[in-house]
């Protein structure tokens, strides 16, 4: 197989089949419609949100500039609060650390985290005979159907209620009709016992406040609260770009992310600082009361410091994963998560390049982008994706992996040999 085919072939075939998927088309246009409706309502309720986004952009810029200081304060604070804070240089180190905390055969509950995907942790933990469960409804469905998440916020957008009913009927060994509220209840029941049995909870973070060593998690279903609240051990994996100076900055992240993700208000914002504790008997501090006894925060580099140093790519780390760019992207709104690898959409191409997949996975995405810049208009952080795409393509060419078909085509159009 040629390198070109290896890099582009499967990707293009997937897109081709996505284009023929009628349910996906229906689901996507439903999703885009509800997204826009919610967005308009959310923005009307919060007239100052654009100013807040602008303020946050400045905070993010400043945070990346002072990342070393911020990382240090975070670590100091988490440890001061008797939590553990580990600075992982790459995915390998992070996995090794997690494996040193988790024991063979544990039940492990997870709540949605893109960053965790960089670790391929499910496979790693399953090798330790652990049962690893995604608990976000969409992720749960995708995991059990061995499918691929198709959206940051609605990973199972491409799966019909009938397929979910089939899946659950199989899991629960009884006939479950394809009614959505019922399906949700059955997943609740199924996972509730898993939550209770779980030894370790794994989550990501939407922001980390250095000043207080606080992890912030936004969610709607209430699974992250249980993942981080019931087991004896809670492990958080967060990219270093999630760190902001103060708690109020982290809240700004939550506000801007939520609004641009079109929530009037997310049901839950969880702020967690170290393990649970009490001094209620004779003022003696004991760790691990109703919540975890062990709290581990893994701050992941895994290519991020390299990004920070690059004046063009750097701003990709401002990304809040609000998904605002996706539904407004002409390509994504047609083929959803197929336009991406793990990180989706145009911005996903840059993250893929640095964090997970490398240039070979990023290049096909970069060349599927129309460079139209609509994402930049909708991005709360005004991330200049087209500009970064140009640099990605430049890198692809330098590495001799630009798509052959494109080269041929350009030659025939311009009459110039490349």
């Amino acid at each position, binding site marked *: 197989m040629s390198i070109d085919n290896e890099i582009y072939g499967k990707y*293009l075939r997937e*897109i*081709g089949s996505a*284009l023929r998927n009628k349910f996906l088309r229906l689901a996507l*246009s439903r999703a885009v419609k509800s997204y826009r409706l919610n967005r308009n309502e959310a923005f009307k309720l919060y007239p100052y949100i654009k100013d807040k986004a602008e303020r946050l952009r400045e905070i993010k810029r400043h945070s990346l500039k002072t990342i070393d200081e911020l990382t240090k304060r975070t670590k100091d604070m988490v440890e001061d609060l008797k939590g553990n804070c580990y600075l992982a240089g790459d995915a390998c180190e992070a996995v090794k650390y997690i494996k040193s905390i988790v024991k063979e055969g544990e039940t492990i509950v997870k709540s949605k985290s893109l960053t965790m995907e960089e670790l391929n942790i499910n496979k790693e933990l399953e090798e330790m005979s652990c049962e690893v469960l995604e608990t976000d409804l969409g992720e749960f469905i995708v995991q059990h159907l061995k499918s691929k998440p198709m959206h940051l916020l609605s990973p199972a957008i491409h799966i019909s209620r009938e397929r979910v009913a089939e899946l659950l009927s199989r899991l629960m060994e009884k006939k479950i009709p394809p009614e959505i509220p019922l399906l949700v209840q059955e997943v609740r029941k199924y996972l509730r016992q898993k939550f209770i049995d779980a030894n370790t909870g794994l989550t990501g973070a939407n922001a980390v406040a250095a000043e207080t060593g606080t992890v912030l998690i936004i969610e709607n279903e209430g699974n992250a609260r249980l993942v981080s609240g019931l087991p004896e051990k809670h492990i958080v994996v967060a990219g270093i770009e999630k760190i902001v100076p103060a708690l109020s900055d982290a809240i700004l992240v939550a506000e801007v992310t939520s609004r641009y993700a079109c929530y009037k208000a997310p049901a839950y914002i969880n702020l967690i600082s170290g393990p649970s504790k009490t001094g209620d008997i004779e003022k003696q501090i004991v760790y691990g009361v109703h919540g975890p006894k062990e709290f581990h925060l893994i701050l992941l580099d895994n290519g991020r410091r390299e990004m920070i140093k690059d004046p063009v790519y750097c701003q990709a780390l401002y990304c809040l994963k609000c998904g605002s760019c996706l539904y407004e992207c*002409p*390509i994504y*709104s*047609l*083929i959803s998560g197929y336009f991406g690898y793990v990180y989706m959409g145009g911005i996903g191409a840059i993250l893929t390049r640095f964090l997970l997949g490398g240039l070979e996975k990023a290049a096909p995405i970069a*060349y*599927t*982008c*129309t*460079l*139209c*810049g*609509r994402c*930049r*208009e909708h991005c709360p952080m005004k991330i200049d994706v*087209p500009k970064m*795409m*140009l640099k*990605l*393509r*430049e*890198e*692809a*060419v*330098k590495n001799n992996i*630009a*798509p052959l*078909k*494109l080269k041929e*085509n*350009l030659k025939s*159009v*311009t*009459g*110039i040999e*490349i």
Partner: protein
Amino acid sequence: MNSILLWQGCNYRNNLEKELKEVFKVLEKLNVEFETLSNETCCGFPFLIGGFLKKAKETAGKTIEKINDFDIVLTPCPACQRAFKDLYSSMLNLQVKPIVNHLAEFIWRILSSKKDGFHLKPLRMKIMYHDPCELGRHMNIYEEPRKIISLIPSLSVYEPRFSREKSVCCGGGGLLFAYFPTLSIKVAAKKLVDEDKIPEDLDAIVTACPQCILTLRKAVELILKREIEVMNIAGLLARSIV
């Protein structure tokens, strides 16, 4: 008087000959004296945005030699315009001497300066103006095409719900039309139907970029299967100007 070059661009030269003639006609009607180059080749834009920077530099160097003697470079292609005005310098560190104008800017300047030197006859048709990404979001030109359109009597203009900064791409940008035409055309069809929600009685889509014309035209023909014209703004003006 200023020497003016009409830089036609590959797409016009190779794929839009009829449209190119309309450009000529309009410029003549407006009494613009201009030249064209017999040895015009690619400006390098496809290489620039395809990542082929070495090739782009080579091509750009040659192009600059050809155009630098003129005072004004005029082009109906916003990609060429952006290459000259922005990308040559930002990506290749090369400078272009002449003033570079997109055709729509240039035409509007003339139309607005000599109010009585021409006559526009009514066009009884319903059109929609599509903002090309290269012209709009990338070069920040939204108003001139609309102003030209507004001068034509009897024209009914449909403004889609997403336009200007929020306009939806035709699907042909970023070389996608060259790399993956099926996807490109599907984007165009979705744009027209789901995003712009073009009305039943729309007669024509007017735009200001050859790539947009090609992509949208394909979508109209192959997917929408409707009789909607897709035309350049010069083409629209050519019909009206007397």
